[in-house]
């Protein structure tokens, strides 16, 4: 891991020294265990702040939108997929960003670790080969990284950056094709069971909009939720309004969401909102044979059509 | 326990279109329950939260003077959800009102002094209330010289035309009207309010200046007042902030350790200068 970190720092230092970029957006050490955080390096000697470990969970692509600087960006697989969609939607110009690609082994799910340790207070975490060692005041515990990855990292099929200007570190082995086991099993339940699960999850939402603000592809200047003229949706945590907010948020990402999981990681209450996006991605793949964040020249599914699109859902009297 | 969030029902008695682009209308409201009227004692410069049922609430300064009992007047410019809904309403419809809120102009301290009222565009409504309050028979002799400097973008945008006329015909009040852009049939001054203020050059001696209008007007009028060496303590501004509860709890209008809805909206320029806050204008 240190070789990777030094490589990232080296690239950043050169970029800044040669004035190729005004800022390098990457990750730095957090103030509490399990939290690395985004940082903005603007001078070569600050490059040593940059690090890389299993806690770089934010999607940095959210910072490139509406920023008219030349940017270097340390980007893992899902960050690059989001960048690709942003370039396709002309929110950022390709040569405005210098992408330092980092092959990713998946990020550790801090909420599940805390639940596992049932509120023992953690003082330090040390990541090793395939495991991580947690040290508290009066205990030590070593856990398998594979068992505590974020749900999005467990099903990730694009661990290596899809576009990059320079790759820091060797490519990792990709896991096999597009599968949506979680969605398929959920689809198997009855209407009532699905509705019960969906409304129970939605009842926990406190409308803090961390999911929307963490998502790199939610960049509208005024979100439909904030509009007041007309006011599309109620602002309180009324079940119907909250359910409709999540349905429309997911639908606005249909065929665009790259399943990076930033929304799920930002949600303070761990609500299963990603399931909605994955259902739409599964249908987009099945109906229009399109996967977001893979290729720059494929047109987004809802921005085009084909005469022989499926009509299975059309009602015939 | 009196509930400060309960709107009191009022009825629209009259709607007067004030400007040629129909964007500002003055609504005359009357209380449906008389006992509510007694509770609603207010001073010029205070504001109230008007509720359009089904749309929401918004703060508006009272344009009428407490010396005219029986009704309240609000001049409302069409900018947002509540104001757009209001502009579609007509006589007889029901609104809700909460208030009065805010400190209003300190008319007590103006007693025995000259007063210069400098207003611009839509911000003139509360100054009009104060002017009508001061020139009322029982009040007039409390105050010395009263000067009104009021400007708008074009003659068709001047509010309260009937009041302006009655004031101009009076001898005990000096009125200077100006427009940014001349128009046919306009005989008054042409120029922005700060320019006209420098031209009128009211004497700062024993005089209070009140400024209320769009942020740009305030920004350029204050240096003129400083040139005329008005001390900061004797310049008063009515700040425009987004407000909601009106009782210093919802946190929206918090600037420095003050709440515009309770400690304001009228502040002396001296007070504003030693507030650490984001720039309001």
């Amino acid at each position: 891991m240190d070789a990777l970190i030094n490589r990232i720092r080296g690239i950043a230092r050169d970029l800044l020294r040669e004035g190729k970029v005004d800022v390098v957006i990457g990750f730095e050490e957090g103030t509490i265990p399990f939290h690395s955080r985004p940082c903005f390096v603007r001078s070569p000697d600050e490059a040593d702040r940059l690090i890389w470990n299993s806690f770089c969970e934010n999607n940095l692509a959210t910072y490139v939108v509406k920023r008219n600087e030349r940017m270097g960006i340390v980007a893992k697989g899902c960050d690059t997929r989001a960048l690709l969609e942003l370039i396709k939607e002309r929110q950022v110009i390709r040569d405005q960003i210098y992408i330092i690609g980092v092959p990713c082994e998946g990020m550790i799910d801090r909420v599940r670790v805390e639940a596992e340790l049932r509120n023992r207070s953690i003082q330090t975490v040390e990541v090793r080969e395939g495991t991580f060692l947690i040290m508290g005041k009066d205990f030590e515990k070593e856990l398998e990284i594979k068992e505590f990855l974020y749900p999005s990292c467990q099903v990730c099929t694009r661990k290596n950056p899809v576009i990059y200007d320079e790759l820091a570190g060797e490519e990792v082995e990709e896991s096999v094709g597009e599968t949506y086991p979680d969605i398929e099993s959920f689809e198997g339940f009855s209407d009532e069971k699905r509705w019960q699960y969906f409304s129970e999850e939605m009842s926990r939402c406190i409308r803090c909009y961390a999911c929307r603000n963490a998502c790199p592809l939610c960049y509208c200047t005024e979100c439909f939720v904030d509009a007041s003229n007309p006011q599309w949706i109620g602002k309180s945590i009324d079940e119907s309004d909250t359910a409709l907010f999540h349905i429309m948020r997911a639908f606005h990402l249909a065929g665009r969401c790259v399943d990076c999981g930033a929304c799920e990681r930002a949600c303070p209450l761990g609500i299963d909102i990603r399931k909605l996006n994955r259902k739409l991605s599964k249908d987009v793949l099945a109906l229009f044979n399109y996967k977001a964040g893979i290729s720059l020249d494929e047109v987004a599914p809802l921005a085009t059509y084909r005469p022989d699109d499926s009509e299975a859902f059309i009602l015939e009297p | 326990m009196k509930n400060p969030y309960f709107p009191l029902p009022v009825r629209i008695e009259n709607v007067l279109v004030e400007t040629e682009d129909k964007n500002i209308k003055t609504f005359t409201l009357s209380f449906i329950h008389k006992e509510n009227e007694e509770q609603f004692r207010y001073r010029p410069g205070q504001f109230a939260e008007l509720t359009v049922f089904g749309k929401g609430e918004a703060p508006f300064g009272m344009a009428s003077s407490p010396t005219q009992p029986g009704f309240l007047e609000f001049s409302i410019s069409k900018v947002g959800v509540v104001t757009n809904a209001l502009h579609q309403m007509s006589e007889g419809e029901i609104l809700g009102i909460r208030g009065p809120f805010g400190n209003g102009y300190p008319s007590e301290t103006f007693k025995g002094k000259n007063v210069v009222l400098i207003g611009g565009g839509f911000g003139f409504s509360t100054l009009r209330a104060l002017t009508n309050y001061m020139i009322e028979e029982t009040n007039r002799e409390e105050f010395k010289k009263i000067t009104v400097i009021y400007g708008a973008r074009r003659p068709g945008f001047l509010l309260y035309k009937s009041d302006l006329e009655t004031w101009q015909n009076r001898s005990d009040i000096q009125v200077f009207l100006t427009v940014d852009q001349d128009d046919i049939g306009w005989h008054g001054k042409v120029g922005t309010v700060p320019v006209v203020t420098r031209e009128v050059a009211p004497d700062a001696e024993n005089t209070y200046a009140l400024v209320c209008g769009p942020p740009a007007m305030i920004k350029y009028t204050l240096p003129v007042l400083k040139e005329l060496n008005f001390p900061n303590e004797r310049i008063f501004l009515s700040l425009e902030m987004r407000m909601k509860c009106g009782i210093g709890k919802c946190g929206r209008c918090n600037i420095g350790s003050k709440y515009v809805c309770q400690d304001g909206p009228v502040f002396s320029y001296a007070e504003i200068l030693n507030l650490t806050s984001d720039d309001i204008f």
Partner: protein
Amino acid sequence: MAEPKIEKWEPKIVAFLCNWCSYAGADLAGISRIQYPNNVRIIRVACSGQVNPWFILANIQQGIDGVLISGCHPGECHYLTGNYRARRKFALLKNFLQFVGLEEGRVHFTWVSASEGVRFAKVIEKVTDIVRSLGPAKKLVKRI
């Protein structure tokens, strides 16, 4: 004393009909005196492509029991590609609403051309029967 008429519950259905085909089809059904249930409230839209998913969700939120969207048959759209784009959106939306648990029969999509008055009446009949069998709308309905 007449037996009090227990108000039999009748579903409320909203239909978004594209101005050039389906609305004309509905008009034709009316002119040719074809009978069809009166539960449907028709909203004319320029094209099925104009129907924003929010129109459907807003109706469901306000307690409408069934929503129908009908446009020109693919290839006949007055705006050439309106119904093609709509078709992709509705294909996703139909599955998606069902996925979260809304009953399958609440939202329907069809194509009715200007000459298909009979087809229009049959579609309305079928939609009304399906929605009536589902009973009053309960899910996603907002209570004041």
